[in-house]
């Protein structure tokens, strides 16, 4: 019997063939956290964006963000995760410079995670895209 796929790939298409903001993922693969600074008004966005909400410019320059931050808030999800994800999973808002970044905390015992805790960027490699390109997500781990 043929089994049909009813769910799709949960990860974004990150490669340059598919994504104009692929520079973010290129840097992430090299261990750097970058975002877009608007060439019009200098606004640094998180997450990266191809259009500035402050001045409506679509020109930007990649800038490095600190690779370290502090946990602003977190929750541990134990059950009810989507297909392909398992608990316990620590979801967190990480404050990096003035930016709030949504991410997950890896390599940590969930019971030891705390608000204010220092964390560092820990890019995680997820499944390759259907064309075989590597894909990365910006996770964090305790410093």
């Amino acid at each position, binding site marked *: 019997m043929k089994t049909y796929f009813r769910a799709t790939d949960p990860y974004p298409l990150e490669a340059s063939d598919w994504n104009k903001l692929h520079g973010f993922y290129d840097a992430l693969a090299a261990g750097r956290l970058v975002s877009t600074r608007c060439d019009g008004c200098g606004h640094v966005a998180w997450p990266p964006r191809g259009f500035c909400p402050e001045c409506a410019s679509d020109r930007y320059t990649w800038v490095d963000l600190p690779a370290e931050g502090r946990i602003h808030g977190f*929750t541990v999800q*134990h059950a*009810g995760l989507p297909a392909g994800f398992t608990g316990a999973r620590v*979801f967190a808002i990480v404050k990096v410079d003035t930016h709030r970044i949504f991410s997950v905390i890896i390599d940590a015992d969930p019971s030891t995670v705390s608000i204010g805790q220092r964390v560092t960027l820990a890019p995680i490699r*997820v499944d390759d895209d259907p064309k075989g390109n590597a894909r990365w997500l910006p996770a964090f781990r305790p410093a």
Partner: protein
Amino acid sequence: MRKVALVGAGVSKFGVRKATYRDLIWEAGKACFDSVPGVRPKDLDGLVVGSVMPERTAFQSHISSLAAEALGIRPSTLSARTEHMCASGTVGIRYAYAFIAAGLADLVMVLGVEKLNQPQGEEAILNMGTGVDREWEAAFGLTAPPCFALAAQRHMAEYGTTEQHFGLVGVKNHTHASKNPNAHFQKGATLDQVLGSRMIASPLRLFMCSPITDGAAAVIVASEERARALTDRPVWIRGTGQALDGFQLTSLHEDYAHWPALKRAGEAAYRMAGLEPKDVDVAEVHDCFAIAEIIAYEELGFCKKGEGGAFVEAGRSDYGGDVVVNPRGGLMGCGHPLGATGVAQAAEVWAQLRGEAGARQVPDAAVGVTHNNSGMGEHVVMIYGRE
């Protein structure tokens, strides 16, 4: 603008249904037409369908036309689908309201429908990830529970709200649902059961969360002239407001215990209706998670900011209190078939303001509010009043 009223309403049984997407449309449509004896499908001139993810769950788009054909409605003024995640139903009611108030339509059905359960349960949850930002949130496995858990934690830290407060919301709404034959859950729940249920996302436990539910609901919205010809008890739309703070979690107010968009949406609706929070007899609020109901008490003005936990603990949101919140059982007790929820809330208020809510009737209910949200930063509020 013309006055606009609800003249009919009906809901399907909510639950894990042995039914297709179209079966659910038929059930709600049948119940709704049965509620207005003088109206046949071909008498309607418009249809709006609130539905979030039939592309994922039924591999089906082109929803309004599908539903029109299923029910025998022949739209001549308005045919549309609304998708605004969990608020899709109420957003649909606002469209019908605006068209009728402007004189562009006279008699419009708003139907909400969702067939969320799938042969593989994890897929149903994966589908819920379409409601948050795919690239920056859902790719990490985020769905709704952690978002609201973050709000719950902030509320506890800032205002001393407790797990017991969240539990009491669960007990109240499950108890209310036990009197609603269309609810997903009808067994009620004790505080021990709620506080002993398994942890989903700290501090929210299973009985503090709404389930994955199939269901549909429909209302018929009419111009004043048509309403008066069809019923002696129209339920008037008196106010409406919608406001958004942002989409991504990190775009919202930095302190998730505060939902400014809900406050603004409520204030807009109260202003339009010329009413105040103390005038509200019955409220259907979006208790997707217990924390959401507690914050809704505060932002809708039923109590002061930070006092939502004490409000439920004192029984002020239950029968005999200040305002009966979620008499049909809320999203926790009835389940949350996304697009159907806002329409089912309106159907409950319609029944309450007509004195037809049976065992759930709020005595002498004259003013009702519905609150539907899509995430913590996007809110829609409607105010209804009887004659």
